[in-house]
């Protein structure tokens, strides 16, 4: 059990910068998610913490020890790999027991501990099989059991759910959350799936191009994005980003329609961010602006309306009983309490 501190961590391959001068404090017992698109440096950051990749510059501290020069085996971390990394020639029992065996755990202790870890992930009936004979979800559980069979200082999880089918992913996500609450061990979790990040994390670090864009609780990341990238990355469907300007304290579209009141001084160029949830759909003429429906989707729990807004398309969420068709005209109103304005040049939040 320990906190993890990254100080000015940098990883370069020639001219390519994987992680750029990154500092981060991960608290003891915290569940921290590194979230970002592929190539953003999240996995590289985790691999450097594990010791599988050597930092070009900077320091890594686990607990009160600088581990830069320690081999992976001496860092006392446990890792779950994206492709599970199970030993194909060993039985499930031996797979789970391996971290105990190589660390010289007395033989008598191994069996009960493997049994306990297997129970925690509900795997007890498969212990004598080989990984090949297991399904993807079961292999995932073996990888988890192998990590929790010891009590390491830190858990590292590299996209552990990304190889599972959608339904299984939801089940495993809940199990992971339950397990992590029960174990209370510092966990660093890498994913590109923002729902995993939102549901699992104590704090999320959103990364892009090797730099953390925003670090905060899932609430903060969702409700208070600091820039265009975070705003666009978090949420499903993604936040609508509408180009326009601010005139007389109102947002004006590029087409010239004066819309809602915003708390900002006049500007020639702004990007308005609004989530699909924060738009109200009404009959033609009864809202702020009339728009034509480009596509109408019924997801069962809600309806999604992709509408043509000048040259842009915007997604609004409607009532689940709403029934419209392509090319119908509806009217949309924006909730003035949940709007975000961004500077289109820097991408930074204005209000």
């Amino acid at each position, binding site marked *: 059990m320990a906190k993890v501190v990254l100080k000015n961590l940098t990883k370069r391959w020639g001219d390519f910068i994987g992680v750029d001068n990154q500092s981060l404090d991960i608290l003891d017992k915290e569940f921290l998610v590194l979230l970002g698109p592929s190539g953003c440096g999240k996995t590289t950051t985790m691999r450097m913490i594990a010791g*599988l990749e050597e930092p070009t510059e900077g320091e890594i501290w686990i607990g009160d020890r600088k581990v830069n020069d320690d081999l*992976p*085996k001496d860092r006392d971390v446990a*890792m779950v790999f*994206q492709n599970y990394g*199970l030993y194909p*020639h060993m039985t499930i029992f031996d797979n789970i027991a391996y971290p105990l065996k*190589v660390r010289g755990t007395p033989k008598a202790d191994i069996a009960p501990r493997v049994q306990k870890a297997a129970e925690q992930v509900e795997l007890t009936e498969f212990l004598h099989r080989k990984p090949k004979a297991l399904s993807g979800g079961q292999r995932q559980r073996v990888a988890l059991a192998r990590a929790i069979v010891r009590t390491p200082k830190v858990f590292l999880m590299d996209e552990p759910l990304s190889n599972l089918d959608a339904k299984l992913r939801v089940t495993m996500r809940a199990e992971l959350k339950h397990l992590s609450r029960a174990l209370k061990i510092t966990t660093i979790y890498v994913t590109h799936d923002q729902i995993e990040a939102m549901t699992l994390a104590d704090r999320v670090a959103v990364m892009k191009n090797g730099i953390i864009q925003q670090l905060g609780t899932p609430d903060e990341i969702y409700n208070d994005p600091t820039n265009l990238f975070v705003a666009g990355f978090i949420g499903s469907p993604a936040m609508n980003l509408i180009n326009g300007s601010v005139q007389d304290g109102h947002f004006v579209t590029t087409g010239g329609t004066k819309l809602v009141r915003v708390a900002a001084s006049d500007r020639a160029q702004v990007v308005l961010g609004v989530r699909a949830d924060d738009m109200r759909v009404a009959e033609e003429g009864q809202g702020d602006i009339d728009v034509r429906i480009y596509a109408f989707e019924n997801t069962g729990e809600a309806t999604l309306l992709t509408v043509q807004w000048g040259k842009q398309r915007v997604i609004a969420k409607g009532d689940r009983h709403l029934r419209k068709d392509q090319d119908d005209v509806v009217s949309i109103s924006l909730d003035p309490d949940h709007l975000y304005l961004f500077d289109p040049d820097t991408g930074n939040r204005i209000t």
Partner: protein
Amino acid sequence: MRDNTLKYLLVLPAVLVVFATAIWPLIESLRLSFTVGRLNRPGSLDQYLGWENYTWAFSQEPAFWNSVWITAIYTVLTVALTTLLALGLAMLLAPGGRFRSGVQTLLILPFAMSPALIGVSFRFMFNPEFGLFDAFFGVMIPPLADVSWLADPILAFAVCVMADVWGWIPFLTLVLIGGLASVPQDTIEAAQVDGASGWRVFRDVTLPQLAPVLAVVIILKSIFSLKTFDQIFMLTNGGPGTATQTLSHYIYFNGMKYGQIGYAASVAWLMVIPMIFLTYAYAKFVFRKD
């Protein structure tokens, strides 16, 4: 003409060539192994002896047993040394190993040489008067300064082993590099994080996953070592005396030099026995359903 007939007509030339150069000589050698079969005695090629050639080899010929032992020791030594050295090299040269992969191209060179040529060049290099290795070992290990390598039974055997290992390392290394590349990297990394040292990662994770390729390599090399002929023929010609006379060389000498074609054929068929076992094992590993 029906498609089927044409099909067989088209393969016929190839079948005839294989029959004339491989199958018929094989049958003929089996027949000869049961005859008196002396090249210098007219009619003896059709004079049947029964199993006498075979029993003669076992009971009356110390030279046969000598070459069996030479071949056995030679095979064990060359297989073990080549495999171990090739495995070490492959670990260094494999992706993620310590060396750049450009070295791999250089590595193939010895394998591009014909075994007979390797034999000749090693004979020259161990020549007491102008041999490069002879001089080199003389300087590096002073007690070996005045030895005549190819005139000493044990040293000559060692030189044969050395030449063979040198010639075969590249091929085995390349095969093992391929084998290592197919070991999933995340299993190795998982073991590192689980707490295994470099040696334990190799022993517990890499080696077991490399085992099928390693088995194929060992079996293949055993087959090639068992039938070694041309290299030895050029390097020592079985000498000094019979110190480096492998079975193939013994067969050649009896058949071609002494004209005892029937006897040579019977020994050749005796050599088929271990070959069958090895080939069977090889086929089992290569074509296993897994």
